[in-house]
């Protein structure tokens, strides 16, 4: 792997607090190694800013291996940047070119208010899960793990849905700020598995109601969410959510 360096202009959203006005600030960053991850590039920027007596750019991140869902960032208008199936922390600077201007913004959606700079509050997702995204089984009640077989192919589809990392890219990428991909991933996983059957109807109704209450928009089937999803959750789960929702409305004894 040969290493090259890039000289970049970064146009970063700065906002001092939730109720403060925000604006873009331009920073010149030279000598960026192409092997750096995107967040390592921001680390370098922040070290420079601190040395110069400025405040560093606040951004969310934690595991830096694409699984915790903490990192976010709209990069040149794309959630998690240009690579498919990739979180911001796994995006590398070899994807960019010398002299490029990179615009970096927080997730923009009413249910995700900005906390500071690039950091947003995604607790709406937790409240959607609280409304029904679980199987009501207390610790200690479980039968033997093999007592209910789950056909391998069904389990695979459930796992595809369960892979959602809860980052919110689907919401940020959607022109309506819809959370349908996130909600459908959990509804789909639990409606496929036998363990999720007893609450199948009540779950989908509660989760959709909470999603609406949080202020997420409606789905207009443009599939931007799937294109942006770092876990590559398919919009087919949205189709399943819609089926589950209709069935629950019509047939469920509520």
């Amino acid at each position, binding site marked *: 792997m040969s290493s090259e360096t890039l000289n970049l202009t970064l146009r970063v959203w700065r906002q001092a*607090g939730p109720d403060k006005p925000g604006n873009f600030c331009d920073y010149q960053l030279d000598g960026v190694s192409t*092997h750096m991850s995107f*967040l390592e590039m921001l680390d370098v920027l922040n070290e420079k800013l601190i040395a110069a007596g400025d405040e560093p750019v606040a951004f969310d991140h934690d595991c830096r291996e694409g699984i915790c869902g903490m990192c976010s960032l709209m990069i040149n208008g794309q959630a998690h940047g240009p690579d498919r199936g990739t979180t911001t922390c796994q995006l590398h600077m070899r994807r960019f070119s010398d002299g490029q201007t990179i615009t970096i913004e927080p997730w923009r959606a009413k249910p995700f208010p900005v906390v500071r700079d690039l950091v947003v*509050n995604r607790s709406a997702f937790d409240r959607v899960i609280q409304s029904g995204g679980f199987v009501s089984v207390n610790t200690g009640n479980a039968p033997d*793990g093999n007592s209910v077989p789950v056909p391998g192919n069904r389990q695979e589809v459930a796992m595809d849905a369960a892979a959602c990392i809860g980052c919110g890219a689907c919401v940020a990428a959607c022109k309506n700020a819809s959370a349908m991909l996130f909600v459908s991933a959990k509804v789909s996983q639990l409606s496929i598995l036998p363990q999720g059957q007893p609450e199948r109807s009540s779950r989908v109704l509660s989760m959709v109601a909470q999603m609406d209450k949080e202020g997420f928009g409606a789905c207009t089937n443009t599939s931007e969410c799937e294109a942006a999803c770092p876990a590559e959750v398919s919009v087919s789960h949205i189709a399943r959510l819609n089926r589950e929702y209709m069935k629950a409305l019509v047939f469920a004894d509520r």
Partner: protein
Amino acid sequence: MFRVASDTLDSRVPAGPLEQKWDKHRFNLKLVNPANRRKYSVIVVGTGLAGGSAAASLGELGYSVKAFCFQDSPRRAHSIAAQGGINAAKNYPNDGDSIWRLFYDTIKGGDYRAREANVYRLAQVANNIIDQCVAQGVPFAREYGGTLANRSFGGAQLSRTFYCRGQTGQQLLLGAYQSLMRQVSTGRVKMFARREMLELIVSNGAARGIVVRNIENGKLEVHTADAVVLCTGGYGNVYYLSTNAKGCNVTAAWRCHRRGAFFANPCYTQIHPTCIPVSGDYQSKLTLMSESLRNDGRVWVPKNRADQRPPGQIPDDERDYYLERRYPSFGNLAPRDISSRAAKERTDAGYGVGESGLAVFLDFRDAIVRDGEDVVRKKYGNLFHMYEKITAENPYEVPMRIYPAVHYTMGGLWVDYNLMSNLPGLYVLGEANFSDHGANRLGASALMQGLSDGYFVIPYTIGDYLAAAKHGKLAEDAPECRAALQDAQNRITKLLSVNGRRTVDSFHRELGLLMWDYCGMARTKAGLEATIPRIRALRDEFWNNVRVPGDASTLNQSLEKAGRVADFMEFAELLAVDALHRNESCGGHFREEYQTEDGEAARDDENYSYVAAWQFQGAGTEPVLHREPLVFENVKPSTRSYK
């Protein structure tokens, strides 16, 4: 360097045959009747596998629980990054597994430095964990017929590892998280996200609360309760570069240590053999490639030091499959400490590959030929994808380059059989405690321990304490609470007022490098003795020359990091002292002076078969060593061989 206390620590392991200890003990534990449980409040710090499962289970029982995490959601705790799997002795593959064998493998894997009774209990409840997770809707891998699938992990000669592709930790954590969210919806658990614990509140000798900082607005808050359950993970980030998440830190545990909780075996650190090598001085973390890859990947280096050919052009008879050569019966699935040292031995001898020479190959060529690319993709697709993202190389075509990296820490706060520290009312679960893995943890055992502690141990043992506690409610403005709050406030003020010239990260990197070089995979007396004054000097410089921009009343990530690094600076010294005092090699603690002729760890059971539990006496002041002798009634410690 340290003082030795004359007492011996009592682990409170119940008497009786190993197989019956836990059952009998549970019978002897006091109960809190269901109607009274809501009157008892419990604070759970951390929401990973241990904390998430504990908070959910205690909420289900009816206790009033407050749960805290520093991330923006409890679902983000670093347990989520565990890849490979979780062990249980279900014996579904019919390959001869049993609770006893899982117990034995874990004790041996820990190089006979773990407590027998705890490990046996772990092996016993492991089966319940699998059942519980399946019932929650965790999509474990299954065979075509619908039954649960297993694979193999290091240190075991059978298949007992349950998994969800390469993201088992994620699925188990989401199972616990969903159970936690369900309790939040019932109101039995109150969730406090983006809160960082800064102090433990001790009242009349018992743990009664915590001081946290609200990361979003900087406000300090006091929370009191009848007991505190600490589930705050390990301290691997003392090395700066590790496979841990960036936020992982020792602060919560260290703050408890400063308030009197003993810190046990800090020198037991696990260096994982298969990580993506370091590639530049800007590198912020290291990425693990799951141990499960060693089911099908073969580890090798060229036999000829100067071999510059691309790996695919090096014929088999010019490759040194050194794990298969040195450990024929376990081969590529030798345990982590042993595999890491073997990689270090080869690269130190000049056989390393890649630009830096600090890497070995992990090669899937044979598996792809044997099983086809699709089968390999199905098992490891997401790991291969991750590898390619980071290195821009396709592991289906060229072997992965890997190197050991800091991964897990077996040491932690000392706990008794009930998982209570020496401070009454302070329980410590998961990686944050020291109890189950001895000097080395086997793969797929961390998830097992976290969930065992949270789902199946703390729900019983905490009742015993609460039923007997007669301390009444502690007001949030009680003098001890106000004092702890003031301590936290003073520390923040001090960090912000230094206004020096160096960034927090630059100190953290320097500390990490020091620890890696002298307190990493191999340690020596001379190296450790030279390191301790350097840690102290760096700590002094930190407090005189760190620059923490911004103020305390807003989200301030530099301030968060500064507090964590300040604690790492104190903790690092204890780690080095512990490593220096332990004049033997065992598991992840390898002292070069103590090795066998063929380079294996040489234990000294006569003098060091004990848990070293350290008592804080002040930063820079000699700590006091308390010892808990390890008693082996069922397994005879022997030379640990994987040959």
